[in-house]
């Protein structure tokens, strides 16, 4: 198993982190036995690039996100995932995070009794390999919260407990800004957000993108968020694999025509 290093420790000879997904097959256990959800996903995401993955419900988009992060519910049955040549699938969930993979979740989990400030600091300590200096850390968190219009009182609340949908998503993006991953996977971060929240969250994502140091995998059902976050590539996800790839113009086509073309010809998993 590989020794993990934080993104800032990445050696200068490999300036561009690259996530390579090759022929990825993933199953979940259902009552009727294992069901294949991902059926051969091929995708390469380089640092600095933004890829939008769009697709209808049930196409396997979220499965891709959770599989990359290592959720135990999903079983990889074939293919490979490599980050800078290292085998991601061999890593545990926390090792993947420390290697630079970040998943902003569609449904962030409540953790009663654990304060946001404690959580953020524990997480930053794990990712950076050392505890951030208290003084600079407090300032760093405060500024990041201000940029996302998060009430300072938020820091003393328990992680995601009693958060509104918008607060949960802002909290995810706060972590993204603080943890500065090499690869950010945003799983339907736009869902359930009103226009104001969508704008604030998108601005957060764009700040991280502007550093040029993150490769972004933006998973979404709707084109709405793409008005704020301009993708370099758009991929249509259907039936557990990428059905079509293109530039930003592909999103416009989807906006016009929907997913009809991609889902016909049988039910999807």
């Amino acid at each position, binding site marked *: 198993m590989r020794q993990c290093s934080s993104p800032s420790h990445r050696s200068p000879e490999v300036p561009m982190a690259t996530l390579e997904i090759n022929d990825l097959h993933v199953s979940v256990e259902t009552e009727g036995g294992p069901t294949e959800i991902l059926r051969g996903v091929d995708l390469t995401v380089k640092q600095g690039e933004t890829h939008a993955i769009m697709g209808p419900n049930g196409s396997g988009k979220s499965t891709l996100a959770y599989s990359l992060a290592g959720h135990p519910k999903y079983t990889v049955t074939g293919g490979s995932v490599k980050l800078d040549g290292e085998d991601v699938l061999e890593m545990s969930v926390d090792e993947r995070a420390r290697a630079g993979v970040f998943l902003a*979740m569609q449904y962030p989990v409540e*953790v009663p*009794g*654990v304060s946001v400030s404690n959580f953020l600091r524990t997480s930053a300590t794990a990712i950076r390999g050392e505890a951030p200096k208290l003084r600079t850390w407090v300032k760093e968190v405060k500024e990041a919260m201000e940029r996302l219009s998060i009430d300072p009182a938020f820091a003393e609340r328990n992680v995601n407990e009693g958060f509104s949908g918008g607060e949960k998503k802002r909290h995810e993006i706060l972590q993204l800004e603080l943890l500065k991953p090499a690869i950010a996977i945003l799983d339907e971060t736009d869902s359930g957000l009103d226009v104001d929240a969508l704008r604030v969250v998108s601005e957060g994502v764009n700040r991280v993108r502007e550093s040029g140091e993150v490769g972004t995998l933006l998973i979404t059902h709707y084109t709405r968020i793409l008005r704020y976050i301009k993708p370099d590539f758009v991929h249509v996800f259907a039936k557990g694999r990428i059905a079509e790839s293109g530039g930003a113009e592909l999103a416009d086509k989807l906006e016009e025509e929907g997913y009809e073309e991609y889902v016909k010809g049988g039910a999807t998993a």
Partner: protein
Amino acid sequence: MAEAHNIPAGSSTTGAIAVAAESTTATRMSAPPSFDVADFPVPHGREEEWRFTPLDRLKGLHDGTAQATGTVKTEVSAPDGVTVEKVSRDDARIGRAGKPVDRVAAQAFSSFEKASVITVPKDAVLTEPVRVNLHGEGGVTYGHTVFDIGAFAEAVIVIDHTGDAVRSANVEFVLGDGAKVTVVSVQDWDDTAVHCSQHNALVGRDATFKSVVVTFGGDLVRLNPRVSYGGPGAEAELYGLYFTDAGQHQEHRLLVDHDTPNCRSNVAYKGALQGDDAHAVWIGDVLIRAEATGTDTYELNRNLVLTDGSRVDSVPNLEIETGEIVGAGHASATGRFEDDQLFYLMARGIPEREARRLVVRGFFAELVQQIGLPDVEERLISRIEAELEASVS
């Protein structure tokens, strides 16, 4: 209202609010309270008060076969002004806070040699806790201790149980008017110990009684913390924390008897369970009698099941005989340690062991903060951490 959600297989949560002319809390017991062990039939295990307890692990405390042959080393450190006496059964200060309610408690009352009476005089405000350290050196022992707290006195009492023992011992707390008492009882026995104890508190007018029961050790621990009120304006806070490991049976059976107007009670017990055949039982009876108008009460039990194979029985029971109260409620919930929480924390780079520790600490944090004694709080946190270390390594 009783809420129960996310209950894993092998656990049960039931709750009831009864509005009755006649107390079912009393009638559910197989015999009325008595000081005499002969008034209680030997339990067979199907009685309401025994149905969760593995009688065969009581080592004879329930059927008269447990002869007092063992030793418990007792150290009492009492600040100046506090008196410690050994007295016999007929001393008038004994038995005022309540009678034994089951055969094992009555056995203790019938079998102890000398009782301890620890007196905090009227108006005394103690700056140091009264500490009672009981260290079992094996074998059967019986005991009885009375804490007699004078009017307007303030005291913290810490009772510690360690070592190995088969012990049934009752404790009384008699609080004078306006007294303020915090009692911490820690059951940190070896994993072979058997311990049964009835805690009776009689809380005087405008007095405040705070009980913190902490159970970590023992093969079988069965405690009955009970509160009744000696005058209006009194308040009782009953907190409990338990960490039930593989094979352990830890049972806490509470009764708050609101028999006096304008009194308050708040009960909060939280437990974590891990390992095969870890069994926690929590019974929370609150009785609001017809005369107890103006009562304000709430009780809560929460359990966190860390591994498969453990079992929780949680039964809150609220009986209300008058509608003229400020408030009454209860809640009970048993939840499994959520893999989703673990995943969320690990997805932020936090190693599994640390993630588990965060979640369990978080579960207990609110309760630990209620104790208000920093050294006890720290000890509890480190003890919880030690339990977790044992589980993940």
